[in-house]
């Protein structure tokens, strides 16, 4: 039996000139989608409050305007007290994003400070700081946040920002510490030290620039956490309930029984906005991950050799020529394998007499 290699070196394909590698083009598709989606909300947050059709807090006394479904005058309908949902949403996106961005900056800065100093101080202080971040990682954040906010005399935006920042740094600190430990022993850092650079200069110009992607990922994560936590806290009533954020909108909608009254237009827009902002951040983070670890990318962007995509899990040429698996469980599993994928795409030969790959669970 002759075994043909799936890769045929095609000189023409190999000589393909490298495509222009702009920053945007080089981004994985998920990162692009995330950035675009997030951009929409950031724009809404910047422009929105300037173009709100109504004052979000204005209560229209006319009973005819209470709980109106979406119409031309009120594009997203009205609340029970005749407030315009669209105006609340636009102002709310602004406030929520603002809070999340500030928390993201403060908490990420804290995690860089803690992570880098733990790695550089070493010894006792490293142990203490690492222990501290591990402890705060394992203690569930929300009950502690509730306790802290509950005791604070006023529960305004500043209090929420403060509390969220204080509890938001451990994850980033842990990752950044590990990375700093790895970089610290590299030759270029040693070289910088040998030339007499001070420690702070080594940190600011040698270490930090090499951790930018990690810091960015940690920032995105922190923003995600801040949005989730602030919305949950506001939903519980632990926020300044006179201001309009996505969380307070949900609080009022829930406490005035929007769904029971059938007013989906009141509760769905803020919830969907939270979910979509969250999705964009998760996509962005996954995309950043893929940027740093090309193996994670979709099959569409794995290594291309000779015009054919190659993948680590591809079956070896010997396996490709081997008889297909028999039995139900093996067949089910096989349908998920790289080989079945290649067979489907006509890249692997389907051995003669082989039945079509069974669909999951659907035989007989």
């Amino acid at each position, binding site marked *: 039996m002759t075994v043909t290699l799936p890769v045929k070196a095609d000189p023409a394909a190999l000589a393909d000139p490298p495509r222009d590698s702009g920053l945007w083009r080089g981004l994985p598709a998920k990162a692009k989608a995330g950035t675009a989606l997030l951009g929409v909300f950031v724009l809404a947050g910047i422009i929105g409050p300037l173009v709100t059709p109504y004052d979000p807090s204005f209560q229209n006394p006319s009973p005819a305007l209470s709980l109106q479904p979406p119409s031309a005058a009120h594009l997203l309908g009205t609340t029970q007290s005749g407030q315009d949902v669209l105006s609340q949403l636009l102002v709310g996106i602004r406030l929520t994003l603002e809070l999340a961005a500030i928390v993201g900056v403060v908490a990420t800065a804290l995690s860089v400070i803690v992570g880098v100093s733990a790695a550089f101080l070493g010894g006792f202080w490293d142990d203490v700081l690492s222990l501290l971040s591990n402890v705060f990682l394992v203690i*569930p954040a929300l009950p502690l946040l509730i306790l802290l906010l509950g005791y604070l005399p006023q529960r305004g935006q500043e209090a929420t920002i403060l509390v969220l920042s204080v509890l938001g740094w451990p994850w980033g600190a842990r990752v950044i510490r590990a990375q700093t430990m790895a970089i610290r022993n590299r030759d270029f850092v040693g070289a910088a030290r040998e030339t007499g650079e001070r420690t702070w200069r080594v940190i600011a110009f040698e270490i930090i620039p090499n951790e930018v992607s990690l810091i960015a990922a940690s920032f995105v994560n922190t923003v995600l956490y801040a949005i989730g936590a602030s*919305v949950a806290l506001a939903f519980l*009533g632990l926020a300044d309930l006179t201001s309009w954020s996505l969380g307070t909108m949900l609080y009022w909608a829930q406490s005035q029984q929007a769904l029971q009254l059938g007013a989906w237009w009141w509760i769905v827009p803020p919830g969907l906005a*939270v979910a979509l902002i969250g999705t964009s951040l*998760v996509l962005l983070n996954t995309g950043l991950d893929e940027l740093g670890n090309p193996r994670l990318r979709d099959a569409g962007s794995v290594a291309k050799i000779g015009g054919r995509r190659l993948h680590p899990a591809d*079956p070896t040429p010997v396996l490709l020529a081997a008889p297909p698996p028999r039995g139900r469980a093996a067949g089910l599993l096989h349908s*998920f394998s790289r080989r079945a994928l290649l067979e489907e795409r006509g890249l692997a030969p389907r051995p003669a007499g082989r039945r079509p790959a069974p669909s999951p669970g659907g035989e007989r």
Partner: protein
Amino acid sequence: MPFIARRLVFYLVAAWVALTANFFIPRAMGGSAIEDIISKFPNLQPSAYKALQAMLGVGHPGSIWQQYLTYLDDVFHFNFGIDVTEYPARVSTLLVQTIPWTLTLVGSATVIAFVLGTGLGILAGWRHGGWLDRVLPGLMFFQAVPYFFLALILLELFAISVHAFPLGQGYGAGLVPGWHWSFIGSAIYHSLLPAFTIVITSVAGWMLQMRNVMITTIGEDYVLAGQAKGLPDHRVVFTYAARNALLPQLQGFGLALGFVVSGAIVMEIVFSYPGIGLLLLNAVTSNDFPLMQAIFLVITFTVLLANLIVDLVIAFVDPRARAQEAAR
């Protein structure tokens, strides 16, 4: 120090940090804030008033060290004082009533989500670029939805529009809680929608993580060696790749647990589920500080205990953890 002993020490330290934070938070708030809190309960019974004062560290409670020791002693005896809003109920009684509900619901739903997500992650990672892998971005949407919002939507779809599930509560009206089938059946029926919410929102996270580790593991030489030997796929997937990929996943489970529990307790509110989340909401809305503090401790200790169990599993699965030089 063996792996488990070291982890045990770590959790003890974490528990001590939580206990101490719980003790010092009210004392760090300053006198006027404390007076505000006390003035919210003008009609308090003397014994409850005394308990509240002791908890907040005002009145004549003795030195701070003495207060601290008394506080630790109380916590060890599961004595969280008297509830200030539901006088004369003791806080510990309220907790004992609600903990089993949350523990059963959140515990089983989280385990289901973890097993399901890990399994799907194995398949998505194995068939990288296949259909399961391509629906992942869609699942990320569910991962980003706040638990309570999804709960609201599911409630609207399946309980209000279509009367397929109950509107809320832990069991049917008129049933007496006890170990008989009509009650257990009703309790399971009422927990389906909340459990479904937890599974949907958390499954994507486990799946994504497992997929990523799987993909990295599949790139290892020993997996290639297994394939080259001509081993059947299922052996390569489960015995070679998944078994090793499971370790980071288990370590992540411990860390993500606090997050899942936090989301789940807020979700309970939407379903008026008689668990600890609803109790927490009542505590927050009525400024019931003794109850809030006790709930914080109970949730934290439960999460720490769950983490310890996960570590026991890791020690069982990973021979390196059992050996002296366990990777942190």
